[in-house]
């Protein structure tokens, strides 16, 4: 088990900055998810923790011990990769045994531990097969077994589920969460899927362009996004971001007029409102527009309303139906409105 600290960590390749000034303290047994779009630096940060990349600046510590310059094989971490990274020439048994063999675990103990790990991911029947004949889900479970077999102090998981189909992804997510709680091993998990992040994480670290945008529990990040990027990244569908102007305590944009929650002055602002905080209502509400698209999903209906040039997403009841271009009115939940500076994206309160 391990506490992981990153202090002023940066990674540069010449003029290209991959990761800038990362400060992060991951508690023992915690499951932290790095979330962000492609190229945001989340995988690079994880690779630096693994020892597969050396930070250009800053310090990485595990249980207080400085890890800079320590080779990946000498750090007590196990990594699970997006492409499984199972050794194709070895059977699943040999794959799972590999880290034990590299660390000189006695042979009899190796066999016992391999069967134990395979049992935990329900892979006991496939131990004599080569990775090539297994399904994606089985391969990912084999990769998990290889990671857990030697009881490392930290798991690093780099988008481990992104090659699986939606149904399997959900099942594996549950399995990973259960395993992490059972083994009580500090885990760093990288993903660009915000549902994965929300459902798995004790804390989420949202990254963009190599920098941390916000750190918090899933609830904190959802309820209190610190900037427009985080607000737009978390939530499915994402938060509506509408550019407009505040004056005399009212936010206005084409088709929209709503109280600005006590924000004074006369300035351009971006209004953020989540689709679930928009309610179809009678006329004379906060938004008047026309139906642009309707997407029934079974349990509810996604409705897109065009107000001026903005498209505003609304979660409506499952039975909601309307003609295209029909006028529609929406009331916002006034307690759940967010305002952001249109230039910097920083939240304005």
């Amino acid at each position: 088990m391990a506490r992981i600290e990153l202090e002023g960590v940066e990674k540069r390749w010449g003029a290209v900055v991959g990761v800038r000034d990362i400060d992060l303290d991951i508690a023992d047994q915690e499951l932290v998810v790095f979330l962000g779009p492609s190229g945001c630096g989340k995988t690079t940060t994880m690779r630096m923790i693994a020892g597969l990349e050396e930070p250009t600046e800053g310090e990485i510590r595990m249980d207080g011990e400085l890890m800079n310059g320590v080779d990946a094989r000498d750090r007590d971490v196990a990594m699970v990769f997006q492409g499984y990274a199972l050794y194709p020439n070895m059977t699943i048994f040999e794959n799972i045994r590999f880290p034990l063999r590299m660390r000189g675990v006695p042979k009899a103990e190796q066999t016992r531990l391999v069967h134990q790990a395979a049992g935990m991911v329900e892979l006991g029947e496939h131990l004599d097969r080569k990775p090539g004949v297994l399904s994606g889900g089985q391969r990912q479970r084999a990769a998990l077994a290889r990671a857990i077999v030697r009881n490392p102090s930290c798991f690093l998981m780099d988008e481990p589920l992104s090659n699986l189909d939606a149904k399997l992804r959900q099942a594996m997510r549950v399995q990973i969460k259960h395993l992490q709680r059972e083994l009580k091993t500090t885990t760093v998990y990288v993903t660009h899927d915000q549902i994965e992040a929300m459902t798995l994480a004790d804390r989420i670290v949202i990254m963009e362009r190599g920098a941390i945008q916000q750190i918090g529990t899933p609830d904190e990040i959802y309820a209190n996004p610190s900037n427009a990027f985080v607000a737009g990244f978390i939530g499915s569908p994402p938060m509506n971001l509408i550019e407009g102007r505040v004056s005399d305590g009212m936010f206005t944009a084409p088709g929209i007029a709503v109280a600005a929650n006590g924000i004074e002055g006369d300035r351009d602002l971006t209004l953020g409102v989540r689709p679930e905080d928009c309610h179809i209502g009678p006329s004379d509400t906060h938004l008047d527009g026309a139906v642009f698209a309707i997407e029934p999903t079974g349990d509810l209906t996604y409705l897109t309303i065009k107000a001026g040039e903005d498209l505003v997403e609304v979660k409506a009841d499952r039975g909601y139906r309307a003609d295209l271009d029909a006028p529609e009115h929406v009331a916002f939940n006034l307690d759940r409105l967010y305002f952001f500076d249109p230039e910097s994206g920083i939240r304005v309160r």
Partner: protein
Amino acid sequence: MASVRRSRSESLFIRYLVLGAWALFCLAPVLWFLSIGLRPRTEIITPQPIYFPTFSLDAWHMIWEDWPMAKYLRNSVLAIIGSVVIDLVLAIPAAYSLSRYEYRGRDDIGFYILSTRMMAPAIVAIPIFFLFRNMGLLDTIWALMLVYAAINMSVVTWIVRSYMLDIPKELEDAARTDGASDLRILWEIIIPAILPGIITAAVIAMIFAINEFLFTLLIASTPDAYTMSVALANFTGGSDGVIYNAIALVAFIAFVPVFVVVVAIQKHLSRGLTMGAIKG
């Protein structure tokens, strides 16, 4: 519908016809020298072509009984296998370094290795002769091994490198976090994963080595170091004149093992020969 089916079968027929004609064109010389090797000398140079020659094992008996052909064959096999082993032992780590590590001058070193294949062999023939003479290796199989290995090193390195580039980096990262050293990764992960590429490179090196003539002629001056390719030249002089049926039979004996191996691994071989065409 019927006309579509007919035109498809016609197109298939034309394809087989063209491929058959091409196969015949390629194989005709082989069949021809086999036929020459298995007929008496009197039926080789004749004013009129002989379509159905007399079957004769004269040349077969001659090359094994009158000439130390077994020795030439042994020399060939030892020199070629030795050279391929040297190539693989040196080229695999070199290819790993060129394909995986970042360091100053890496691409220049890669190009230098490749460029050794670009010059005409005759340019280095005399320096190599003096080099081996000073080392006391002239007329030995050791010298042949070293020369063949040097000639083929660039090709083997680049073929192996092209296969290594196709191995996902994740595999090595996984092995590293699992606790493996670089050497372990190369031995336990990379080499088994690119085994078809290594076999391909070895076979290509073997073919080049079997066909090598210039340096062998230069280095080997007695039957102690003669190989099959130089032995062929022995049938062209002396009081017996040019012994065509013996030449043809020795050429055929040298051809068969290569042919068998190439057919066995042809799927991988085509990939090896086009290496660099898609991924550099």
